[in-house]
């Protein structure tokens, strides 16, 4: 089973929920937790442990100047500005390249060859006997987040229970993460903004046909609007985590509330039961 954890925006405590849930699940079964928030992965902060890195590369064009006649076709074709033919140079901007391969196809002189270039890495560790953490890391300034996410997901493939921690928002990387998931856990906050973003994230899950449930985090006890929204959209509210200084303190120092605060392991065990119960 593949469980994606998403939220319409950052700072809802999505990773906190993912980390606590993974820790709980890893008590009774093998779990692979994949940090798909490749621009700002943070799950390793909850699970410090020695990791092995695998590079992620993307093909980028290399010009064979013995063949190129500076016709300019490649530069005109590239929608991303990763190639520009000015005077007698073909300038390449590899970090703008989306690796579509188009320039090599349109070059009438066969002067473009694709060469691999590192855009990030996937880092793999085993912080608990039954938990494997796979972290996708996109290098600074790179654009191909989905490529690194795909590589991270690929490495997890084949395991019976996989959790994907998506990046905040609803852009391409999130779609890439949710693709192929069996269940989507939406983490939200009980603020008007939280609801707005939940609406967006729930829309994505619905669009992709993935069953979803909601965790309300940092609840101030006034969740009527969120509850109302969830009822209208048939989204079960699986857990409500109150706003508390105690929880915030544990979380901010990279602690897990399931391990460090009494009562939470049971509640996360219940949550995992509900999620696994919808297994296809």
């Amino acid at each position, binding site marked *: 089973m593949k469980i994606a954890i998403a939220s319409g925006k950052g700072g809802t405590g999505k990773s906190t929920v993912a980390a606590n849930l993974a820790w709980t699940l890893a008590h009774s079964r093998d779990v692979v937790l994949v940090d798909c928030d490749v621009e700002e992965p943070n799950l390793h902060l909850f699970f410090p442990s020695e990791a092995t890195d695998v590079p992620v590369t993307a093909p980028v064009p290399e010009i064979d100047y013995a063949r190129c006649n500076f016709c300019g076709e490649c530069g005109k074709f590239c929608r991303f500005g990763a190639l*520009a033919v*000015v005077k007698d140079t073909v300038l390449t901007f590899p970090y703008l390249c989306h690796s579509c391969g188009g320039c090599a196809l349109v070059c009438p002189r066969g002067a473009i060859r694709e060469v691999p270039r590192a855009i990030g890495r996937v880092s793999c560790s085993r912080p608990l006997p039954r938990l494997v953490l796979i972290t996708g890391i996109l290098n600074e300034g790179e654009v191909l987040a989905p490529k690194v996410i795909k590589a991270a997901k690929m490495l997890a493939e084949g395991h019976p229970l996989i959790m994907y921690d998506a990046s905040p928002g609803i852009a391409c990387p999130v779609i890439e993460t949710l693709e192929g998931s069996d269940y989507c856990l939406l983490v939200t906050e009980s603020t008007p903004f939280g609801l707005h973003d939940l609406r967006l994230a729930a829309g994505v899950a619905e669009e992709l046909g993935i069953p979803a449930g909601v965790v309300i985090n940092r609840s101030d006890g006034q969740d009527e609007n969120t509850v109302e929204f969830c009822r209208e959209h048939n989204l079960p509210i699986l857990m409500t985590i109150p706003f508390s200084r105690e929880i915030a303190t544990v979380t901010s120092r990279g602690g897990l509330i399931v391990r460090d605060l009494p009562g939470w392991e049971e509640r996360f065990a219940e949550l995992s039961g509900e999620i696994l119960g919808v297994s296809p």
Partner: protein
Amino acid sequence: MIVCITARAPGTDAPVEQRFARAPYFVFVDTETGKSESIENPLIDAAGGVGPRAVQLLSDRGATVAITGHVGGNAARALAAGGFKVFAYQGSGSVADALAAYTAGNLQPIPLV
């Protein structure tokens, strides 16, 4: 010599646009004949990498001098590779005003590296 000035509208009376690659129009002026040609910028709504693409557009039209407000890093690299001379016009005048200031030697070059 062909000079390209970034503009908000076509024609030499149009106000100069400060952005380089996102300028609505590029006005090309041939300083020998005094003839001008205005091109609507196809990149105005493009997603990314507009700098290098704009430079290729200028290069294709034979321009060697560009007058604009400021240029981004990618555009600067492409302009430098293309051997362009780039000048800053920060006033609120027209394309013709910018060109006059350039001809009079009153514009500061924009460093490209």
